[in-house]
């Protein structure tokens, strides 16, 4: 049977208020009032009256706190209140015997001995037990067992010490006790009294020592109360021959003792209430702080987005203008030259005609240069649009071969190609074509004999990927095209020639802009020096790459490797914005089966400057998320393959992505009505981008303010940790024992807990068990910080349950602090 859960402070308070006061009231009504009445009107002394009132009050208070400490499983304090309860009970019995019942002297003596002597012994036993177990760790299950054990020991000692004289000296009960026996009895009394005083003193010293170490106010009250009780014990040392005046003094001190302990407990309780209030207000402050931070960050982000949008706009405006300004005069130059050549062909002298043709050729060259520069700058500015459509690769290759054949007219070159009919790709047709035209054109330029061949085939994987910005991986494991059910992810398109080749040392420059291996060739062969740079940029843009192999004087082979599906590379204008945001460049991963949803999602997400990666299944999604951690994962709740909760579980159970927030959403069939069901708050809303962003901010931007809960009963430790972490972006929560920590965990869900093991009340071990047993809280990281000497078993058990175990006894303080910061930074 598992032990019952301890109550929280708040719950215990309610139970106490409900039950204890009722019990106390009943007790007072039944016994207290009649007794007070009898004392008042039977003309007894006023000290006795005060004692009765104090006893009943004390009894009530101790009873209430006993219930409270029992509910909280604060063992030491429970025994302490039990001790006082016993003492009070003894006093009540005694005063009862004084006032209302007529007893024979012998009976009176027995009652007196038991009530004063025995209860005192029980009292001090429980007290000492409490004081010396304040620090000791006992599992809660053993609480009752141990209580019975220690309790019975205490009771038997008490009974033995008080009843022993009765059995030893039968005459003890008679009035005329012999002088020698009387002296013996008094020695016995003295012995008990001395034991009481020594026990109390030891407990007081222990409490005081604990107080000095922990600065727990309650312990000081206990020390003070015990000192007062020791004075009381001194007065009562000669129990059987105590003078009336001494008794009166002792009563005063007893009242003071009870009062002190009572006040101490009440004070502790009030402190707890105040602390709770303070925690509440600090939480409030934290919320305000976070809200402010969030607003500030939003504004910052907005400004940065605006700035980068502006920069991007200026850049593209410049590009557009440059293009326009350069092409306008080209229009007149080419147009008129062309016309003159056409119209005046016959009239012009041969030489002038040739000159004019040179002008025309150079004008065309300049134009192609302008166009190439424009292409390169567009890719660089992130303004090159990718238009993805499905097409047959073979068809494109045939077109390229056809178009290029005119360039070979003056050379004995064979143009060949080899491509399976069934290779369909989902890519940008124009760009693939242009890359091939560039490569084939390049080959023709540098090849005098032999031939040029284009070979296309499926690639199993993309090897030697260099710069692949924009690549988020193989999005679909298979082609989207209905004709194909192949698993291939990439295609290799190789253009090989039997030309002059490239020297090895030049290979690395081959894709740079305006780089031609032999400068003089530029003039001879023409070309802009941008052809290969464009090939490189386009292939990367499509999510692939290009590589070159060459044997000098034998030939060269360029291989373009591009994904079968470049859908993810499809760009819209705002994609560029996010790319330019640099540090803020983040993407959101969408797991859905519907391409429609992806389009919609992309629009929303792009508008906010975020990129979108997507996957069709949970498995693919997880793989992608691990490769490139997204800002958030948006999961379609209508996935056919796996349920939403499964998907969430799968993602959350993976250590690499467990902290990525998940947003659930659902669309209706025609995407007319769409809902965003944020996992964080499960609110159904129309998918306004704002909502999406709010969720993303809440989870990603907001999150850096992590919460750390420190559970330690030592204020000094709290201060130290707070001091160490003061410049780090953490919100610190404080708790002073396990149960406080637990209730705070439930309310606040901290990201990390620094836990002390040895604490009054619920200790670290119990706390750990509770936390790990809690479905919602079990994943919180815990760092244990303890001064306790752990045995091997304890240590092994702890290692398996917590993230980090820091022992003050074996590690230097600096190392511990370093480890703490480290732990905080890695949550």
């Amino acid at each position, binding site marked *: 049977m598992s032990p019952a859960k301890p109550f929280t402070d708040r719950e215990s308070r309610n139970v106490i208020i409900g039950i204890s006061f009722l019990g106390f009231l009943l007790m007072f009504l039944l016994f207290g009032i009649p007794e007070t009445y009898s004392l008042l009107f039977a003309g007894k002394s006023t000290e006795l009256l005060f004692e009765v009132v104090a006893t009943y009050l004390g009894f009530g208070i101790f009873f209430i706190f006993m219930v409270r400490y029992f509910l909280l499983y604060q063992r030491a304090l429970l025994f302490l209140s039990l001790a006082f309860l016993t003492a009070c009970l003894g006093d009540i019995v005694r005063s009862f015997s004084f006032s209302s019942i007529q007893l024979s002297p012998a009976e009176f003596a027995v009652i007196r001995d038991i009530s004063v002597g025995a209860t005192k012994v029980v009292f001090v036993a429980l007290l000492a037990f409490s004081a010396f177990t304040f620090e000791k760790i006992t599992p809660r299950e053993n609480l009752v067992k141990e209580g019975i054990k220690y309790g019975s020991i205490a009771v038997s000692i008490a009974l033995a010490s008080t009843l022993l004289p009765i059995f030893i000296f039968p005459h003890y009960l008679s009035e005329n006790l012999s002088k020698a026996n009387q002296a013996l009895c008094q020695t016995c009394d003295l012995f008990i009294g001395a034991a009481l005083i020594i026990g109390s003193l030891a407990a007081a010293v222990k409490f005081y020592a604990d107080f000095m170490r922990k600065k727990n106010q309650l312990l000081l009250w206990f020390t003070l109360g015990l000192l007062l009780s020791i004075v009381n014990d001194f007065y009562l040392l000669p129990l059987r021959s105590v003078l009336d005046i001494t008794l009166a003094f002792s009563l005063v001190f007893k009242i003071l003792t009870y009062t002190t302990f009572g006040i101490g407990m009440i004070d502790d309780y009030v402190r707890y209430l105040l602390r709770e209030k303070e925690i509440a207000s600090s939480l409030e402050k934290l919320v305000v702080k976070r809200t402010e931070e969030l607003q500030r960050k939003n504004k910052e982000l907005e400004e940065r987005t605006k700035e980068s949008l502006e920069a991007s706009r200026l850049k593209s405006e410049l*590009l*557009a203008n440059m*293009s*326009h*300004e*350069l*092409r*306008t*005069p*080209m*229009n*007149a*130059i*080419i*147009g*008129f030259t*062309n*016309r003159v050549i056409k119209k005046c062909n016959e009239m012009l002298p041969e030489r002038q005609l040739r000159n004019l043709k040179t002008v025309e050729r150079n004008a065309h060259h300049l*134009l192609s240069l302008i*166009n190439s520069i*424009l292409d390169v700058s*567009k890719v660089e500015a992130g303004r090159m*649009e990718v238009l993805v459509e499905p097409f047959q690769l073979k068809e494109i290759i045939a077109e390229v071969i056809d178009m290029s054949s005119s360039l070979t007219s003056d050379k004995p070159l064979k143009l060949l190609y080899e491509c399976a009919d069934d290779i369909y790709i989902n890519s940008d047709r124009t760009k693939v074509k242009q890359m091939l035209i560039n490569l084939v054109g390049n080959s023709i330029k540098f090849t005098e004999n032999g031939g040029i061949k284009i070979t296309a085939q499926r690639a199993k994987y993309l090897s030697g990927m260099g710069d692949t910005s924009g690549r988020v991986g193989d999005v679909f494991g298979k082609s989207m095209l209905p004709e194909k059910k192949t698993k291939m992810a990439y295609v290799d398109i190789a253009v090989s020639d039997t030309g002059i080749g490239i020297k090895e040392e030049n290979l690395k420059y081959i894709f740079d802009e305006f780089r031609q291996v032999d400068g003089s060739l530029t003039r001879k062969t023409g070309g802009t020096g941008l052809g290969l740079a464009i090939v490189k940029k386009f292939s990367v843009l499509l999510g692939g790459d290009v590589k070159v192999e060459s044997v000098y004087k034998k030939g060269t082979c360029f291989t373009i490797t591009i994904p079968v599906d470049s859908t993810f590379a499809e760009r819209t204008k705002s994609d560029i914005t996010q790319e330019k945001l640099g540090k803020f460049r983040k993407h959101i991963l969408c797991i859905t089966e519907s391409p429609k949803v992806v389009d919609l999602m992309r629009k929303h997400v792009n508008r906010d400057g975020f990129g979108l990666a997507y996957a069709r299944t949970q498995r693919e999604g997880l793989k992608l998320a691990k490769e490139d951690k997204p800002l958030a994962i948006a999961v379609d709740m209508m996935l056919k393959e796996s349920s939403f909760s499964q998907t969430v579980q799968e993602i959350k159970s993976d250590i690499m992505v467990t902290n990525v927030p998940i947003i659930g959403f659902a669309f209706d069939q025609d995407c007319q009505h769409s809902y965003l069901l944020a996992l964080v708050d499960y609110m159904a809303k129309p998918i306004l981008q704002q909502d999406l962003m709010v969720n993303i901010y809440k989870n990603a931007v907001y999150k850096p303010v992590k919460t750390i809960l420190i559970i330690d009963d030592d204020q000094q430790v709290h201060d130290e940790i707070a001091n160490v972490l003061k410049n780090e972006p953490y919100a610190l929560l404080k708790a002073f024992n396990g149960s406080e920590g637990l209730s705070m965990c439930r309310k606040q869900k901290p990201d990390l807990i620094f836990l002390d093991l040895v604490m009054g009340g619920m200790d670290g071990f119990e706390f750990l068990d509770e936390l790990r047993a809690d479905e919602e809280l079990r994943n919180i990281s815990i760092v244990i910080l303890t001064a306790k000497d752990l045995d091997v078993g304890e240590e092994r058990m702890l290692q398996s349950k917590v993230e980090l175990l820091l022992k003050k006894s074996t590690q230097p303080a600096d190392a511990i602090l370093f480890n703490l910061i480290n732990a905080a930074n890695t949550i």
Partner: protein
Amino acid sequence: MSTILVIEDNKDNMDLIKEILEDAGYEIFGTETAENGIEILNRGIKVDIILMDVSLPKLDGYEATRRIKENPRLADIPVIMLTAHAMEEDRDKGFEAGCNDFLTKPVDEELLLQTLAKYL
């Protein structure tokens, strides 16, 4: 003989287009601003096709095209945009404004004549 309204603010380019088109046997109205162009159309001068530059002073080619297409009397006249703006988004903007065709400069004589022939 078909009449073509050419709106082009660059004099050299205007001369070139005029030369090409006159050689091909068209009658040309040339104007440097879109306002004048619209004015000509509003006066009821019969125009079979409009060749519209995009970068024009004050009223630009997109806006002018939009106005022409919004006017029910003129909406039927085909508008061919002729511009040195060669980026894809310029093309989109042109079609959005309502142009019937879109040609880029430097003008390809053959292509221009073929395109015109399509509408006449």
